[in-house]
């Protein structure tokens, strides 16, 4: 009520507190040191886990929520992740159970009951939470037609998808593997290697311009990272919800940054060698090209193979800019052995072929999202490293560097227009 009264009481307590002895105040630290045996430390470490186990057990036994669980069953959630048409007589659905256990009891094709066979981990039509299965339907489909397919569970819930413009998925034959290898060679290895032929020219450049070229490389890589990042999150939408696609992508990106950084630091200490930087750049581009290969393979797999000459030329122009990116760090100092250049070229270019092969073998959105995310992480790490390299012997914000970075972004955007899968 009155301020006057309160003040005296405050002033009374102050001196008392100060008069108390203080030294034992940080008892926590001293007590820890007082543990007589090392075992006690481990007991202390494990105790919370043991207690958690006890509480979980007690919760499950006592079922304190039993009274409020009426009718609150989780709804079934099954996704058809992708479909394949291995031959003219078969439709194959790749499904994942994202919810409580279900049984696939019936299958519809274009609003008609049809025969089917389920291959699941338990070898029956029952799918536990998180289990995936393939549903094989003998169906004489017509190329170019659309097909509505749906699976029905024991309680009549349906989960469906539309196969648009049905087209036979190519099997994995030596011919198709060879075709993809040839495409990969032209789309990946050739342009990347051609890009590396700028190396002698780069060596003649003054440091300022070389930095600008490095910044240009960083722009290219940054563009690819953003591009692949968007795509990764797009693909993540199709990942069965059980696997939390977007989080998987985040994990892939951050994980890849950390892993590539750790590898870089392993041999060379804090300051990465220029060769190590070149290799990590090549790896980043390689992972990006792997994802590109996956996309080409998937396009083959779902029959969208309009890979005309124009598209291949587009890819070549797009990818030729990747060559100088990982040789630019080597422009200063001693030229490494030629075998290193061959290795860099293969590391950056050859994954297109591998990606193509895997892309045709599976269209698993989980795999695609994960590979895209890892590529993004690897690319970002290289962008950071190039940034470090430029900063260590100059300023990042020098006009040529900013211009180089911007031009890198623009070139990638422009050449990206040439590729429409």
């Amino acid at each position, binding site marked *: 009520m009155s301020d006057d009264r309160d003040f005296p009481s405050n002033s009374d307590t102050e001196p008392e507190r100060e008069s108390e002895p203080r030294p034992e105040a940080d008892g926590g630290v001293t007590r820890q040191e007082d543990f007589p045996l090392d075992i006690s430390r481990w007991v202390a470490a494990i105790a919370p886990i043991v207690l958690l186990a006890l509480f979980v057990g007690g919760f499950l036994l006592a079922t304190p929520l039993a009274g409020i669980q009426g009718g609150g069953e989780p709804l079934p959630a099954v996704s058809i992740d992708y479909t394949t048409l291995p*031959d*003219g*007589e078969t439709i194959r659905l790749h499904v994942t159970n994202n919810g409580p256990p279900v*049984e696939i*009891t*019936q299958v*519809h094709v274009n*609003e*008609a*009951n*049809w*025969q*089917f*066979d389920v291959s699941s981990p338990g070898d029956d*039509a029952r799918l536990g939470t998180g289990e995936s299965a393939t549903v094989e339907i*003998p169906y*004489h489909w*017509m190329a170019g037609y659309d097909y509505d397919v749906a699976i*029905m*569970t*024991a*309680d*009549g*819930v*349906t989960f469906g998808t539309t196969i648009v413009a049905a087209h036979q998925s190519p099997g994995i034959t030596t011919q198709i593997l060879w075709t993809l290898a040839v495409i990969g060679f032209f789309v990946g290895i050739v342009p990347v290697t051609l890009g590396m032929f700028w190396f002698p020219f780069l060596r003649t450049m003054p440091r300022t311009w070389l930095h600008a070229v490095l910044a240009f490389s960083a722009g290219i890589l940054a563009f690819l990272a953003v591009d692949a990042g968007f795509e990764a999150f797009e693909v993540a939408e199709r990942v069965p919800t059980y696997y939390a696609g977007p989080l998987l992508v985040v994990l892939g990106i951050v994980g890849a940054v950390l892993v590539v950084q750790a590898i870089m630091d392993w041999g060379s200490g804090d300051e990465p060698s220029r060769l190590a930087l070149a290799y990590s750049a090549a790896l980043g581009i390689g992972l990006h090209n792997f994802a590109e290969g996956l996309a080409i393979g998937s396009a083959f797999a779902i029959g969208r193979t309009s890979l005309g000459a124009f598209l291949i030329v587009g890819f070549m122009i797009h990818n030729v800019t990747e060559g100088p990116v990982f040789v630019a760090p080597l422009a200063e100092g001693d030229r490494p052995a030629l075998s290193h250049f061959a290795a860099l070229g293969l590391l950056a270019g050859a994954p297109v072929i591998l990606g193509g092969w895997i892309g045709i073998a599976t269209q698993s959105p989980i795999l695609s999202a994960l590979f895209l995310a890892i590529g993004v992480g690897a690319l970002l790490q290289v962008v950071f490293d190039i940034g470090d390299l430029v900063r260590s012997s100059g300023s990042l914000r020098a006009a040529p560097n900013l211009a180089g970075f911007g031009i890198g972004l623009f070139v990638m955007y422009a050449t990206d227009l040439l590729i429409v899968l």
Partner: protein
Amino acid sequence: MTDQRASDPTTREDEAASVTRGLEERLIDSVEDHEGVTRRSVLGGLAIAGGAAVTGLGAAQSENDPDGGDGEVNGFGAPGEYTHEQFDPHGFLREFNAGDSPNERDAIFGRADDLNAGVYEEDGQTVREFNFTAIDVEQEILPGVRFPMWTYNGQVPGPTIRVEEGDLVRINFTNGSRKMDHTIHPHLRNLNPRMDGIPQNGPGLIEPGESFTYEWRAQPAGTHLYHCHTLPLKAHVHRGLYGTIIVDPKPELVRENPRKYLDYHGPITEEVREMAVRRAKSRNMISHAGFVPEGYDGIDEMVMVMNGFDTNFNGDNEVYGVNTRGFAYAPARTDSYRGEWAAGKTKKPIQVDRNDLLRVHLLNLIEFDFVNSFHTHSQFFDYYDAGTTLFPNRKTIDTVLMCQAQRGVLELDYGDHQPGLYMFHAHQSEFAELGWMSFFEVN
């Protein structure tokens, strides 16, 4: 046979391969110029046929496969067998309850309830009494697929009631459902509005745990239906609250006033009158069960309620059928490339005797779709709309279209057909392929 194949598989396959090649070339040559047939589609078809021939897929293998799902070539219908013993469409087909019929009922796998509560005279009037209880049960509507039903006496369609023209039908209705109000509304010419089974009249809705006794006048003669009239109607009908009530014509009344029973405007000669009386006797299973129409050994009557189920509640049916179970009257296994079939335990054609007059009481209780239909293969039938006439309204047709709640009597004669399988189904292909495809096996 199996052993022989195992001992020398290569020879057999080589042989089969060369035969297949020869056939391939011939077939391809013959269709090469045919527009719309690609070489690939021909080859694809042959690959399957050849595969079936070589591996012996189909009926033979299916027998070894208790599941029944794998051996079917170019499959037919919904694979698998029914396992749930709540309602048997094969038992339901020919079950008629007249009030004094046995309460161990085939429709519910021979279990007993108290449906038939007696037949007695009251004020010079025959009373047929029944006990109806609304309960919630699950029924299997496709192999492995169950649907939560609201039912009369635990079955969908509800019990078939059969009475004679002019009887008093007394229904002691108890609502045994846990949550929902229900009624029974009859499609009869009822003279007391309190007995109409609607929310606006008489007792109105019967709440869970409550009872009401409906009394209906059995008229006019014909095949009719009853159903719950609680709102929302779509839900209460679609969930299974419906059934059949057949009113058999009394030959005496027909003799008195034949014109009432005929969709016919010519003079009523003695010949016409006698014909109508004979037809009334043929239709009356209660007082003239032994009547055999000329040219037949007997009469085989069955009830088919065309219904459907919206299993995912999207306002469209996922399962169609007659008498609830999709494909219940169809073969369990089919080898499409050899025209062979096999009956299953729960999925099997309806056995009929070719010397019997086949009479089908057909009702359309579909929801969500405006119309349903009934089409016979290799057969034409006479159709009596609502069964209220004794001469057919439509003679010699093979397809009849019905709107919701429309019903009629069909008379089929397989007397000069060769024994074998004769299909019948909705001619809405979508309905047929989602379960409403059935067969008579004529012996």
